[in-house]
């Protein structure tokens, strides 16, 4: 059921109003043919009696009112799926751009997916070892979690994400796994960094890449994470693979969202971002997870750069309200050459509590990280005080804490891009650092574990 119209009414920003239409459905896909034969894609944002408002993915530049044809497809945006999507590269709409043949679809799926029933979910609790102490030890990642990296411009979020992709494994298990990588508005150089890394490690054959670069159509970015997650859902829940999804950079995605909202003359919310941005981001992030009756999983690592390093900016703020924690990179640590510069105090993995402990990591893990964080946090307080008043003003105990936090940053958090630490190494390192303190100071640790580990590793 293809319907064709030449009745473009108005064009404004990325939006076009088509008049006199019949039986157009909300969210339907359409193809716009320009006078010169060029075609573009669009999607229905609103239908009102006989008028349809269409958002044009590639933008409206060069489109004029007479002479433009709009064909409605009678369905939303779909992605062609088959096991062949691995090892391939697509544009932000899911069309191949690697000069290899089209995907022969086993299945076509609407990119919006359907909301998962919370009753069908299985709670993520399988420990993923990333080999990075600041994550494994203190902000543990589990399968099916959505854990974003909050970064700032110029900070090494890409190397961190690549390191996670390279090193992540579930201990004691050989399972099928895949990577889905989606780029939104990043530079060619950044995308190339990931491609190289995947190529060097051989991961490329298990990776699907969806690339919308900085010079690609802005509006297409709205579709890109959805396209990528549709691929991930197929890999995870139909091919039963454990799928790691990296979305970068969500800040560019949100800016595209703002652009459309402005073009629709909607009442803007905070800093001009639309009021529904929370719901919109949730419809992306909530696609991560595990299901009771499927083997695979989707672990989601979105990357976003916080404008002006501000955690309360709407993009990190709304993301933090949806995701299950965040890994925050700190500029102060980066300047101190701590690598990766993970600021562990404002970082958090909310699902860690069920992914660690006996049978998963080690019995002492929970007490140990509580203690490490408590000590580090007191050390940072002492550091602040010493900046104002000089170290001499500190009590002996506070001086000890200060020394601890310094060592902790240099030896525990800092490790370099290619060091892959086993979880035991991470845990033992924690005990080694804590041995600086008298036993009585370690209040967050149970006696039995103090007995067993304190001063012994």
């Amino acid at each position, binding site marked *: 059921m293809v319907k064709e119209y030449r009745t473009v009414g108005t064009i404004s920003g990325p939006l076009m109003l088509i008049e006199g239409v019949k*039986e*157009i*459905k*909300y969210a339907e896909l359409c193809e716009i043919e320009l006078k010169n034969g060029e075609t573009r894609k669009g999607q229905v944002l609103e*239908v*009102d009696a*006989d008028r349809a408002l269409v958002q044009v993915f590639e933008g409206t530049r060069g489109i004029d009112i007479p002479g433009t044809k709009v064909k409605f497809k009678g*369905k*939303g945006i779909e992605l062609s799926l088959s096991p062949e999507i691995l090892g391939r590269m697509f544009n932000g709409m899911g069309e191949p751009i690697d000069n290899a043949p089209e995907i022969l679809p086993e299945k076509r799926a609407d990119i919006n*997916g*359907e*909301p*998962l*029933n*919370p*009753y*069908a*979910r*299985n*709670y*993520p609790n399988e420990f993923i070892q990333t080999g990075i102490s600041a994550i494994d030890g203190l902000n543990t990642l589990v399968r099916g979690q959505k854990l974003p990296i909050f970064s700032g411009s110029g900070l090494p979020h890409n190397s961190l994400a690549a390191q996670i992709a390279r090193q992540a494994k579930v201990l004691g298990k050989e399972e099928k796994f895949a990577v889905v990588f989606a780029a939104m508005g990043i530079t060619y150089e950044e995308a190339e960094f990931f491609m190289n890394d995947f190529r060097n490690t051989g991961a490329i054959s298990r990776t699907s890449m969806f690339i919308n670069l900085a010079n690609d159509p802005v509006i297409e970015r709205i579709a890109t994470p959805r396209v990528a997650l549709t691929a991930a859902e197929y890999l995870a*829940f139909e091919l039963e693979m454990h799928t790691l999804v990296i979305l970068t950079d969500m800040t560019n995605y949100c800016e595209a969202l703002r652009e459309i909202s402005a073009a629709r003359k*909607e*009442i803007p*919310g*905070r800093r001009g971002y639309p*009021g*529904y941005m*929370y*719901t919109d981001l*949730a*419809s992306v992030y*909530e696609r991560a*997870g595990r299901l009771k*009756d*499927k083997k695979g999983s989707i672990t989601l690592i979105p990357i976003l750069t916080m404008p002006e390093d501000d955690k*309360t*900016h709407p993009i990190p*703020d709304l993301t*933090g*309200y*949806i995701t*299950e*924690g965040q890994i925050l990179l700190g500029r102060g640590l980066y300047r101190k050459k701590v690598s990766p510069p993970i600021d562990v*105090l*404002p970082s*958090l993995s*909310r699902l860690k509590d069920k992914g660690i402990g006996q049978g998963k990591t080690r019995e002492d893990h*929970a007490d140990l990280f*509580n203690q490490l*964080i408590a000590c580090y*946090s007191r050390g940072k307080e002492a550091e602040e*005080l010493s900046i*104002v*008043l000089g170290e001499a*003003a500190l009590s002996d105990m506070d001086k000890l804490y200060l020394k601890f936090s310094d060592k902790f940053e240099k030896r525990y958090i800092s490790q370099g891009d290619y060091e892959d630490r086993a979880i035991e190494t991470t845990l033992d390192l924690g005990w080694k650092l804590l041995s600086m303190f008298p036993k*009585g100071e370690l*209040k967050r640790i*149970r*006696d039995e574990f103090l007995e067993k580990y304190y001063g012994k590793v």
Partner: protein
Amino acid sequence: MSGSKMYDVVRVSEKKLIGEIIELKGEIASIQVYEETGGIGPGEPVFPTYEPLSVELGPGLMGSIYDGVQRPLDDIMKQAGNSIARGISIPGLDREHKWKFKPIKKEGNKVGGGDIIGEVQETVLVTHKVMIPPNVSGKIMHMKEGEFTVTDVVCVVETEEGEREITLMQKWPVRKPRPCIDKLPPDIPMYTGQRVIDAFFPVAKGGSACVPGPFGSGKTVIQHQISKWADADIILFVGCGERGNEMTDVLLEFPELKDPKSGEPLMKRTLLVANTSNMPVAAREASVYTGITIAEYFRDMGYSVTLQADSTSRWAEAMREISGRLEEMPGEEGYPAYLGTRIAEFYERAGRVKCLGEPDREGFITVIGSVSPPGGDLADPVVQSTLRVVKVFWDLQDRLANARHFPAIDWLSSYSLYTDSLKKWVEENIGKEFQSNVKDAMAILEREAELQEIVRLVGVESLSSEEILLLEVARSIREDFLHQNAFHEIDTYTSTKKQEKMLSAILHLYSGGLSLLKSGKTVDEIVKLPIWERISRMKYIGEKKIEDIDKINKEIDKLMG
């Protein structure tokens, strides 16, 4: 759309999506559709039901998990698989299950609205009272006993308008509060096993509280802890526009957890309404009403109910989205001008009431709402509108959460306006000293804040020995009493008895320390005493062994000689 009224439910298109009329202008009705509307276009049929959005109330509610418009998510999964397909229509209560009904009233009895006419043992923890619906009165003509489904007639009442059949189930429109005889002032505490709440900022049975805080500050953990440990008969958790996994967590964990009083699985007295962030926004708006109406129904039976709404901000945002679509004039931050009214109306449905009907009984609804303000900024209209109506404010601070001081409730800025009205009950049931000890501890914390200010400016040397001791005691109150790890098997719940003992031990140590100072010991010697470490491990003493805390007190006495 003539014949239809505001807030009537309609079915949209051949897919039969559920919707509600939210605006009528002449012949034109605006419909808010509770499901995703992709693929729906102009010209589709709309089927009126001529009924407002209602919930089904009867046996079978306990242990359920519903979406925002009371569709059971487990049955949706059976019908539609892992995702929520559109247009599914499943009744809220199981139509097949037979319940054993024990009548209390007999033929010939006069009955009125709210009268309890019989009972069903719904779960091991909940005896379901079968009541005459609020608007019915007359004389019982027939009364049955035996096993019935929720739609079987168990009783017939002769009313002025003719015979009225009574089933185990009744329906009630969600946006209309269920009636009661009277509202009474709340004066009994609802204990939660969370020390900072029960001791410092308690909420009353029938009261309301608000927990605002930035992301990751611990709102959901507090709400879950209250759902697990609150001394209420019925627990309702409304997951409003939040994460799917958090609901899964409750679903998987509650059947495993035991109620501290009865030892039965918590799920037997719990009901979940889950309209997660990825589910349709309009149903999210309805979900808090679905929750509170079910709460009122159990309140009417004479139970104490607590409802946790996580997060009311998502509800408010749903209102904002819908209002935006209707092109209503926006108020602050784009929220509709009636935001404050809606929030007040919702919290007004909490309370301690004298229930309708016989026998005489009181029921309670305690409402605890999380608020998720943008950037954690308390100037947010949802926070401000909520603070105008609730009496308890637990102020969660990013700073505390980052230092992993949980619950991250700021002890200086939070408040409970119930402390005075609970005084009598607390003195009679916990002890004369409890509230005054809390006051003393609070004074120490306030003094600590002032001293810390001085330390920041001029360093510790400027403090006297008494002041240094006070700082140590304040640290102990914070770390050994207020700090509570929800994920530690013992620390997760503390009875009020243990709370009372813990706090008085810390204060006892303080007075002990002061007298040691007087007798010539240095403050350095005092803070190095091993007794501090014993104090810090009190929280890990099991409920069965709390007498061990008395031993600590004796030791302090010994130190003082």
